[in-house]
């Protein structure tokens, strides 16, 4: 983290507040969110530092950090923030912005997982785990991690080899298309 970062401008703060719908400006730097974050140890920037960088206009620092992809969406920060800031949703907004700007982010695997998951929902209306995991592993060129878990799951009938009965696939496809449009207009 650049310790000497000076205030740049307010555009990034305004953008994050508009997209997340939560008052990042209200942060008083109490660090309660960071103190309770289960992933804090692995993060390059803690959530309270991210809030401060947003105030300062540190767009690049924030959108390229690893933390936003490590956040497990556990909602501890949101529940505890004394200023009522929905910190977990800010993390979502930052992931969305990083992906939108096509930044070469350190959390590529996270984004790849989201895409593999959602394309399975788009195709079947529900998650086809085996198909989704295979697609994810192809996109990451990672075939060996947790292969033994997949075997265990198959043995326990916890991974189906058949795609789930698709519900209203035509309508689901429309939902995805319209949701993409709505996101572009936000």
């Amino acid at each position, binding site marked *: 983290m650049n310790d000497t970062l000076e205030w740049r401008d307010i555009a990034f703060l305004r953008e994050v507040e508009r*997209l997340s*719908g939560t008052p990042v400006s209200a942060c008083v730097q109490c660090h309660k969110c960071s103190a309770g974050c*289960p*992933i804090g*140890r*692995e993060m390059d920037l803690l959530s309270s530092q991210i809030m401060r960088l947003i105030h300062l206009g540190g767009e690049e620092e924030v959108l390229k950090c690893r933390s936003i*992809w*490590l956040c*497990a*969406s*556990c*909602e*501890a920060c*949101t*529940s505890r923030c004394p200023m009522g800031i*929905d910190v*977990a949703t800010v993390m*979502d*907004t930052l*992931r*969305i912005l990083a*992906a939108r700007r096509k930044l070469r982010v350190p*959390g590529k*695997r*996270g984004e790849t*997982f*989201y*895409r593999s*998951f*959602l394309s399975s*929902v788009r195709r079947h*209306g*529900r*998650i086809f*785990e085996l198909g989704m*995991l295979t697609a*994810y592993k192809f996109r990451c060129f990672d075939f060996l*991690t947790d292969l033994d*878990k997949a075997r*265990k*799951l198959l043995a*326990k*009938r*916890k*991974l*189906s080899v058949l795609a*789930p009965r698709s*519900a*209203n696939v035509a*309508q*689901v496809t*429309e*939902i*995805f298309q*319209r*949701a*993409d449009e*709505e*996101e572009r207009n*936000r």
Partner: protein
Amino acid sequence: MKYAFFPGCSLESTAWDFKKSTLSVCAALRLELHEIADWICCGSTPAHASNASLAVALPVFSLLRARDMGMPVMAACASCYSRLRTANYKITHDPAECSRAERITGMPYDGSVQVQHILDVLANDLGTEEIRRNVSHPLGGLKVACYYGCLLSRPPEIVAFDDPEYPTCMEEVLRVVGAEAIDWPYKTECCGASLSITDPDVVRRLGYRLLSMAHRAGAECIAVACPLCQSNLDLRQADIGKSFGEVPEIPILYITQLLGLALGLSVDELALEAPAVDAMPLLAKHGILNPAEGGKRS
């Protein structure tokens, strides 16, 4: 009592034992479940972390189907429960979200379909007294750590059926069925959720903290009510031991599996063979199951 049941994707695959035990327990307690026809995936973390409009629209699609059934919705997966509640919260608190969801799904929705988690239904709708009346095989003082994870109690504006930092409803249910619910400090800590796919190392570290704390607090098994909590602690237990040093094996069972045993349901009805860490020896030790009869209820 009747509920529109939203199983969600996990209960159709990695958590089929949660579905089976939920259906068995609800039938035994005369809770009528009607699965929502053509429900679709709630979108889970991949939706809210990549497309905020989709994260509301996907749950709304299923909630609209439940509305026509005229019953409150019951979910068992903590993540589905959280996403359905969050969609309702956004629709009722932000008119822009409401009209956006209407444009996407093509139908107006006011966020009024009630969504409950099975723990809420058991502890509050049915109540511990009613559960007590149905117990035929008390759990013989089995020491259980109740593990809620993140989303059953957080954030309080959205879920709110128990205390957000120190929930107790699972303990209350297990106590009336004869288990000893031990106290421990990590009941709402995070298991790492879907990081198990992208960053399994982080999930192993969190899992180790949880398992070793449960063990030191005296737990013989851990009760969960979320498919991700279950698989992160159960399936990865062997790996966790390899990375951080052995913790004695701790079976990770769904609350419905433990409750079902006390109601006299069978190993098969509760899918007790499904978890990776075998629970049978522990259940036999407490006289809950009889190994001589092939695991039948004693």
